[in-house]
């Protein structure tokens, strides 16, 4: 029971308190681009959670092997990328052949898989020496964090887009970056980091 709540705590922490996208910058490109057209937000968030969890579990298991554990970051980079690629191919085959999904769904699988947010999870697990359940919590939290970030950015983008008082040079990506910066500042404050000189 404790383990389950640890997992849940990790997921909530990584999505709400120290949102990976705003405080770490992971997957922020995809969040910003999705915030303008959030039609497939829910399936994409679920796919990100799925890939994060599966990659985290497999990589965490492989990290237990002594040869891999003691090797450098280059070997780990190769291993994690390879695992992600294999899981992606398997998922694509499943979605295309068994579920017989449309082309647009299969494209979303690629977008969800090859994401700095998904690939960062095994690195974070390794750095923080997370357990299996913590890894699952991180993975679930990544999907939830993505959904929250897209929602927050979308709500602000609409108001920015309709606002006539914003100078012309700041319209577009400039205003988006500054808005995301404010959100990032808010979440950084929530995480308890100090900004003193």
């Amino acid at each position, binding site marked *: 029971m404790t383990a389950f709540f640890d997992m849940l705590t990790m997921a909530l922490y990584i999505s709400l308190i120290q949102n990976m996208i705003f405080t770490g910058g992971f997957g922020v490109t995809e969040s910003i681009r999705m915030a303008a057209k959030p039609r497939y937000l829910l399936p994409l968030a679920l796919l990100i959670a799925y890939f994060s969890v599966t990659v985290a579990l497999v990589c965490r298991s492989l990290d237990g092997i002594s040869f891999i554990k003691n090797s450098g970051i280059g070997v780990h*980079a190769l291993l994690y990328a390879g695992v992600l690629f294999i899981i992606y191919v398997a998922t694509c085959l499943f979605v295309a052949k068994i579920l017989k999904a449309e082309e647009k769904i299969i494209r979303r699988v*690629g977008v969800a898989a090859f994401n700095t947010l998904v690939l960062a999870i095994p690195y974070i697990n390794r750095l923080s020496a997370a357990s299996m359940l913590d890894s699952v919590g991180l993975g679930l939290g990544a999907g939830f964090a993505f959904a929250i970030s897209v929602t927050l950015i979308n709500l602000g983008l609409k108001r920015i887009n309709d606002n006539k008082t914003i100078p012309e040079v700041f319209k*577009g990506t400039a205003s988006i*970056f500054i808005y995301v910066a404010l959100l990032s500042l808010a979440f950084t404050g929530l995480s308890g980091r100090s900004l003193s*000189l």
Partner: protein
Amino acid sequence: MAVKRKVEKNIKKVFAKGALYHNPLLIEAVGISPVVAIAVSLKTAAYLALITMVLLIVAETLTSLFLKKLPRHIRIGIYMLIGTAVVIPFVTLVEATAVSNIGLFLPLVSVNSIIVLHCERYAIHRNVKLSIADSLASGIGYGVVVLVVGFLRELLGSGSVFGVPVASMPKSSGILMPFGGFIVLGFLAALLKTLLGSGYYKYNSQDAFELTGIDDLPIPKYSAITLLVSKLLDKIRISKTYSPELPKNTQVIMDKDLPEIEVEKDSALKAKKNIEIEIIQGIETKADTSDIKETEESTKAETIDKTKKDAFKEKVKKQSTISNHKKSKGAASLEAKAKAFDYGDEFKDILEELSAYEKTKKGIDDGQAVEISEDAINPQEIEQSGIIDSDDQKKDIYNMDTESIKTGKDSQEKGECEN
């Protein structure tokens, strides 16, 4: 000679677009993650710029040469493998030189969105020469921005430049955090847009990330509970066309009673400019059409039989219910709406025109002839027949769909309403 000049011109355009007008960071908003995380000093920014440039060149060249014929979902996986193969030597080099806070983020460059974007949008559709030109241009554009970001953040955050402390420089450690990177990027984006000036809109910005319209979040309109209740109600047959937004006195009509109304688009477009509207209406009515015809041909002074009155009543009610249905935005059932009301913006314009009904009414008032075609209802006749009681119903009648309404003096003089 002419062909050579054309290729050169394209390469120049590719360079200008890749580096400036479609700058990957400041205009297309891709590859942001490593910049805000890694580019906290000039040294790390230089590493990042170099890696990204090499990665872009290798990925776009290989894509242009070998990957054009593969399906998209396979290509995306291969981009990541290419990225990993390029990044690993750099990662090993960086690990050896022990550059801080770059170890975790550097391998993530292999899934940098700039690779996928440029390979899918440029390299796939162009030859090797143009792909290399695009990769160089984008790499230079990306690299310059990253270096500027790294320089500013190191100067303001650490008070140094390339590790060399700058005397009497106030420091703000907050700028070294991701939000500092976003703020610097925001101001640089505004600066670039200012520098480009009118040239910003010169090139086709289809590939650029433009805020042409923000879509709403995909939140369901009705809660799951409401949908469940409506499905249960359908099952016990209370009403299939129940809609909470309809007015209380509106008669609920089953799907089979709803008329199939077709709108001629051409005439609908004309109706915007002219008052003449032609709406083809197919109403299934049980009333005897010959009786209705006789009634409509009679003079205004003649009274209408009770049976014909009822037929008119029924018709009026149907017509008014239809118009109410059309007015209400939350129509009864989706099926009914699709059948009768899904005409788009053009039909809404027609309804607006009809609701005014000024010219027709004016025509009647001025004694001009009004030709009303078959199955249409003469509003004045109905008014005088005593069928309708309330002002709302009168209003509905004048707002009803009618067939071609033309003004002409002759028929009015004859005292006829032609059907």
